């Protein structure tokens, strides 16, 4: 038995550090097969709308490539640009002989029962690599789709951005309209080499009873940049994630933006940690959370290991209902003198003063509230192509309407 397997077996029952514990045996291991479609247009109509809501463009236009997986089956995989490679992870493992420099390197397989489960019961995922110096113009899109009731989908994704390459990925995770309950576990290991940039935009659009446990870790080398934008406007029953970013090389930069909404009945425990391990590294974590009755824990952790590193953390929460709860937990951990790290956190309801100020301009109370909420969610997403920014704005505006 391999060391990895052994470790996974050892952690099979290990509870996660955060978030409600899930009974994995209550989810089905096996799922029905979906047919592979060589052409994106072949994706069934019924599934297209949900995928589009999660940011997918199913004509494939303005996309460098596409990967679509339904339940356990990769149903489409294509690339339009030289120098970018997209494969189902299982194929990549074969092609690259186990991906030994990348497979369970950034994420610890023994971290908890969810990582362990992904190893022991592995359902593909995407492998995306941008070759050295390649600067892709359009984003690669990846969609992980759940359609079968009560299954668990355990994917393992690997992204490698080679030296001085530039890659945008937009990933949409979503569920079929009829689906009520399922589990999505996504292990993602991203490797950003010297001088490379990865912009990773993730849009989640879940069914009401879905449980979600992403396990993401990112290694950023010298001069590399990792920009992450996470938008979850259609919340799951239970979501817990805490991507861990290591800025390992001099001058590496990261910025994590999170925008999410928790409706009544949702438990969302989200956050991120950044380890500033090298000189001149910089980080920013920004989260804007809204509770319309659900419970949110918004975490953020910055750890500074070198003098002169700079980092800032912002957790702002808006309560739109009488029930629900938002806990902001910003943490700063300076391991050496001379780190510059700061945080701000604010949780509250919309200020009556702001609403009335806008009303004095002739705007109705409902419209004023909507303007303030949209403003609250309007995070400047640096480094995002205009087209992706529009996509995110559209998702927020669409979902924002139903919040009021």
């Amino acid at each position, binding site marked *: 038995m391999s060391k990895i397997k052994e470790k996974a077996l050892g952690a099979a029952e290990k509870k996660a550090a955060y978030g409600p514990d899930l009974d994995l045996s209550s989810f089905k291991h096996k799922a029905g097969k979906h047919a592979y479609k060589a052409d994106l247009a072949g994706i069934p109509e019924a599934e297209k709308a949900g995928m589009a809501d999660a940011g997918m463009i199913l004509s494939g236009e303005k996309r460098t490539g596409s990967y679509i997986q339904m339940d356990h089956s990769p149903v489409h995989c294509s690339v339009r640009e030289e120098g970018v490679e997209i494969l189902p992870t299982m194929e990549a493992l074969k092609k690259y002989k186990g991906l030994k420099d990348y497979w369970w390197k950034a994420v610890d397989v023994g971290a908890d029962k969810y990582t362990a489960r992904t190893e022991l019961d592995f359902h593909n995922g995407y492998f995306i690599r941008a070759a050295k110096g390649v600067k892709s113009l359009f984003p690669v899109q990846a969609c992980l789709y759940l359609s079968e009731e009560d299954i668990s989908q355990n994917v393992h994704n690997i992204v490698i951005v080679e030296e001085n390459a530039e890659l945008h990925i937009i990933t949409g995770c979503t569920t079929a309209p009829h689906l009520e309950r399922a589990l999505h576990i996504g292990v993602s290991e991203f490797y950003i080499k010297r001088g490379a940039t990865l912009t990773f935009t993730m849009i989640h659009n879940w069914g009401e009873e879905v449980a979600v446990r992403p396990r993401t870790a990112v290694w950023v080398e010298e001069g590399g940049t990792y920009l992450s934008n996470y938008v979850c406007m259609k919340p799951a029953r239970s979501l817990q994630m805490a991507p861990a970013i290591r800025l390992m090389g001099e001058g590496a930069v990261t910025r994590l933006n999170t925008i999410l909404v928790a409706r009544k009945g949702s438990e969302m425990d989200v956050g991120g940690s950044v380890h500033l391990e090298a000189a001149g590294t910089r980080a920013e974590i920004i989260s804007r959370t809204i509770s319309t009755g659900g419970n949110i824990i918004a975490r953020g952790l910055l750890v500074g290991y070198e003098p002169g590193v700079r980092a800032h953390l912002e957790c702002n929460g808006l309560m739109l209902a009488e029930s629900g709860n938002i806990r902001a937990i910003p943490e700063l951990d300076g391991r050496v003198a001379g780190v510059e790290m700061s945080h701000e956190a604010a949780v509250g309801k919309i200020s009556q003063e702001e609403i009335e100020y*806008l009303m*004095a*301009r*002739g705007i109705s109370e409902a419209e004023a509230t909507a303007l303030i909420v*949209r403003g609250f969610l309007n*995070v400047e997403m640096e480094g995002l192509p205009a087209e992706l920014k529009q996509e995110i704005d559209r998702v927020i505006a669409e979902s924002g309407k139903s919040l009021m």
Partner: protein
Amino acid sequence: MSLEINNLSVEVGDHEVLHDINMEIRTGETHVLFGKNGSGKTSLLMAIMGFSRYRITKGSIVFKGTDITRLPINERAALGIGMSFQRPPTIRGLKTRDLVELLSRDNGGETESHAKSLNFSEFLDREINHGLSGGEIKKSELLQLMAQNPDLILLDEPESGVDLENIALIGKVIKKLLQKNLRRLRTKSGLIITHTGLILNYLEADRGYLLLDGGMKCHGNPREMFNTICNLGYEECARCQR
């Protein structure tokens, strides 16, 4: 008649801040409110605009013949009342440009040229009132009023925190908003709070009032009143009991 206030009393919390106020502003007229800090001037403007914190306990406010005493703020605005705030809130994520364009939907959308006339162009893409200086805030307020184009303009200390050059600029814009160039056909009216009286150098006002401890103590020619206040103080001005 533009505005009629009859026996108005207003409370904030448990405290009565205005007692039995009466005033009338005829269409086309500009009136000025004087008074010490805390005398109730801002409260009067906020009550006319309809802010929930300013609870009307007695009396009525009539605007263009309609009793607006119980109307929500936005309906008062829709009827044609607009206000420039002294300390407006910051609204994060909402750009001044976007709000002004929204307000000028029916007024031809002249955002850029209006901003230019106020030397405000470079601030258009800032979030509403975020990180603006006192003078810039006044300009932002006026820009919003230009888009709104109200018939009754309530100005709360439009010149406070503004440097001398910009006071001239702001004075010019207010003069235009109040149609001071028109004499007979003027439809715009104004009610202005001023401490420094500087704004009076840029526009003619028809009547002044002195508020003291929430009560209306005097009214008269605004220039004369301002001179009395400057030379002899608020109490002396109140003593003449006109």
